[in-house]
């Protein structure tokens, strides 16, 4: 009887802790949303937490400015990179898991070694190579340097290793070429892993700051992250935090939608390889 009570109290405690941390997590975002609906005067006076009225001025200004160009830039680059990257990484992971060939082990080990090198070592020379190729200030540069994601290759390799080969062998006996087997049979079966990859890669590109800072220099080509930073510097001087917050919130919405949409795949797959930042 007392154990039941203890359980109850324990369960309450756990839920309470989670609710507390969830509220803590939400607070900055809620505060940002509330701020985005205030007027600059309200912000300066800082009288109340809630806005006086739902002032859409900030959003109107944001969506009318170059912000929409940057949004479009980020979206197109992210989509292109996600598709190309998932394709390339999955092919590579599959090759490393399935086929037996000379150099298989050494390639894998070399790839692992490369991720251990911090981005800073490669970032400047990569910039020089990009510039030498005449691709400075282009989105192509961003795409080319973002397509290879060794963490994803690693993940797909592990995934395919644990995957039964019966269906593929049956296809081979039926005369399917390796490419056909890959496209028609393997890819559909690997859907959860592909979805997980897609979320992480899209998120990585959408949120990337340092790379665009390096490769993109003209305002029209800015990605959303660096554009936001540039705009914020301007607006900070006039304390127009409502506009800065509006911009931040708008930049979060797409990735949030994608995450909610592909959520179920993401949670079921063992995620052990995505990088950290």
């Amino acid at each position, binding site marked *: 009887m007392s154990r039941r009570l203890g359980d109850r109290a324990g369960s309450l405690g756990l839920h309470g802790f989670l609710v507390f941390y969830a509220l803590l997590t939400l607070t900055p975002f809620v505060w940002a949303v509330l701020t985005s609906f205030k007027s600059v005067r309200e912000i300066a006076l800082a009288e109340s937490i809630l806005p006086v009225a739902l002032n859409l001025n900030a959003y109107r200004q944001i969506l009318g400015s170059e912000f929409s160009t940057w949004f479009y830039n980020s979206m197109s680059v992210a989509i292109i990179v996600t598709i190309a990257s998932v394709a390339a990484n999955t092919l590579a992971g599959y090759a490393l898991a399935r086929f037996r060939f000379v150099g298989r082990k050494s390639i894998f080990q070399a790839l692992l070694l490369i991720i251990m090198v911090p981005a*800073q070592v490669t970032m400047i020379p990569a910039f020089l190579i990009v510039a030498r190729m005449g691709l400075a200030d282009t989105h192509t540069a961003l795409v080319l340097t973002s397509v290879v994601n060794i963490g994803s290759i690693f993940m797909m390799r592990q995934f395919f290793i644990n995957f039964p080969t019966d269906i593929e062998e049956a296809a081979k006996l039926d005369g399917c070429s390796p490419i056909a087997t890959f496209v028609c049979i393997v890819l559909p079966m690997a859907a959860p892993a592909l979805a997980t990859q897609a979320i992480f890669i899209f998120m990585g590109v959408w949120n990337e700051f340092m790379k665009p800072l390096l490769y993109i220099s003209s305002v029209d080509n800015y990605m959303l*992250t660096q554009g*936001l930073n540039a705009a914020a510097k301007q607006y900070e001087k006039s304390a127009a935090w409502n506009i800065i917050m509006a911009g931040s919130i708008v930049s979060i919405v797409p990735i949030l939608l994608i995450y909610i949409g592909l959520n179920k795949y993401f*949670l079921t797959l063992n995620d052990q390889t995505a990088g950290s930042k």
Partner: protein
Amino acid sequence: MSAIAKVSKIDKVAGVSKIDNSGRSNRDARTAWAFLAPTLLLTALFMLGPVLFALYASTQKMDLIGGHSSWAGLKNLDYLLDDHKFWAACRNTLRYVLFVVPAQTVLALVLACVLNSRIRFKRGFVTLLFLPTLTSSAAMTMIFMWLFNNNGLVTQFIQTHTGITIRFLSDPAWALPVIMLMNVFSTTPHFMIVFLAGLQNIPRNLYEAMALDGAGPVARHWYISVPQLAPITFYVVTMGLIGCFQVFDQAFIMSGGDGGPEDSTLTFTLLIYHFAFKTYNTMGLACMLAVVLTVIILSATTLMNRFIKSDGSNA
């Protein structure tokens, strides 16, 4: 019949039938290389090449715009060791790592353990708690800059409840802690998910056995979850170290690129960026600093490996 013989790899004792797989393995090899081609090409061009170039450049005195370079040997290293900015970056980055890595690891572990027990709305909580990781560092930094602004929520809260006014972002003592807090906030959810996935692999009967012996929840987690999670903890700490030593975005955005106030937010990577693009003739210095950073990261992860084994025990 021959197809089956080819598919199964029968390696009989010397003398008896040896299946000729060479035709098959050739085709396999060609397909494999074809599949790997795009990846290998891009890796060689944008990852391998740059690493080799950086090693070479660290020994040069290089002018980015003019394209000249001259041999400088270890003079770059000498210069760095004499530069007060270098030591400021060292201090800041080290402080940062020593706080953020343990904080995010422990918090992520605790959250994962709590989420793994019998909780209602588990999916809802996980989705909600993942929000900071989804947010870009740029957006997150801006939201935090507003929170800790002189008119911001946190500053006002502290003011009304304790009467103390702290100018967080312009105070050299507080700027870096704000960045630290922000980073723990944004990366903890990611590692929480990783730990959660690992916890789900631990068989429930272990916990039940301990519970029958009368162990409370904390003890159960300490004696079962923590040891079983050792390989995952190794991954979390390693990636945490690698990521934290390379902190750039938040420091850049918050200080406007200069590492202020008074060099208190100057990190290694910010200094590398500074040498590469903001000062003249110092590309070689930037590359040398990058090499130094690599050595530091490798040493830190090796040191950490002494304490946490990557293959964990499963006794």
